[in-house]
């Protein structure tokens, strides 16, 4: 979405429900920095709490200014994320073993390929999660993200073939799906 578009849609929605919309947005943005600050600080004196509130306000203002507050992570998504992470770390370990073997073998047999793997009709957040998961797994690397596919550089063809089977993609879809 271009900057101009985003501004105009925001202006239009602001005309419809000016107050309510911005308050809802604020309420969805605020908890994250507040929880983060409390976790890192662990102090509850008035002065520090005031400073914390100030920093949260600055962060919210910056997020609003950068146009990052228009989408947010839903609670259901956050609850389903740990399970996905567990599955992903298993995949990462398996892939790591393969790459580590290639590193230490006297003559590494590398056959790098660049192929595209389908990723159609993904919401923005799922697209980010999917592309990042591809890159996080050693042996595959997302080079370019288009609307309906992702260009993947892989150390060998097997990596791309495994992505095309679509197990990771269906997991990503299930993680963000709204019920």
């Amino acid at each position, binding site marked *: 979405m271009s900057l101009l578009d985003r501004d105009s849609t925001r202006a239009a929605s602001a005309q419809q429900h000016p107050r309510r919309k911005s308050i809802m947005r604020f309420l969805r943005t605020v908890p994250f920095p507040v929880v983060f600050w409390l976790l890192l600080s662990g102090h509850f004196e008035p002065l520090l709490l005031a400073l914390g509130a100030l920093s949260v306000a600055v962060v919210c203002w910056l997020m609003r200014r950068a146009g990052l507050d228009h989408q947010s992570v839903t609670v259901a998504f956050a609850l389903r994320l740990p399970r996905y992470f567990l599955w992903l770390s298993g995949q*990462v370990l398996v892939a*790591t073993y393969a790459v580590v073997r290639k*590193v230490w073998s006297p003559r590494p047999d590398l056959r*790098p390929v*660049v192929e595209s793997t389908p990723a159609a009709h993904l919401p923005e957040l799922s697209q980010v999660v999917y*592309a*990042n998961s591809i*890159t996080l797994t*050693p042996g595959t690397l997302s080079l370019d993200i288009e609307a309906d596919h992702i260009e993947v*550089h892989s150390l060998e063809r097997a990596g791309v073939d495994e992505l095309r089977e679509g197990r990771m993609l269906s997991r990503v879809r299930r993680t963000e799906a709204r019920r």
Partner: protein
Amino acid sequence: MSVLEVLSGVLLAAGALAVLSGGVGMLRFPDFYTRIHAAGVTDSAGAGLILLGLLLRVDAWSTAVRLLIILLFLALTGPTATHILAHAARRDGVPMWREGDPRQ
């Protein structure tokens, strides 16, 4: 030695091996794109294993929270930075190594 300590030792050892392999791969692999894969071994598996290994020896919850936050940051920012880097390199026309080419 308790079970936790042994487990933490195993995780740390695996992490150290992964980190070392990534470093060696950075030197051995033939071109930029394959080196990214070697760097990925350190960034994802190495970092994750070492931080999890440390997580098993903490004695205060604030330390555990900090370790988890570092883990989360690395898991979020690492792939993003790698992706931008690879994307920019490809646009810039950094040549891709195929089997049989000389090292670059």
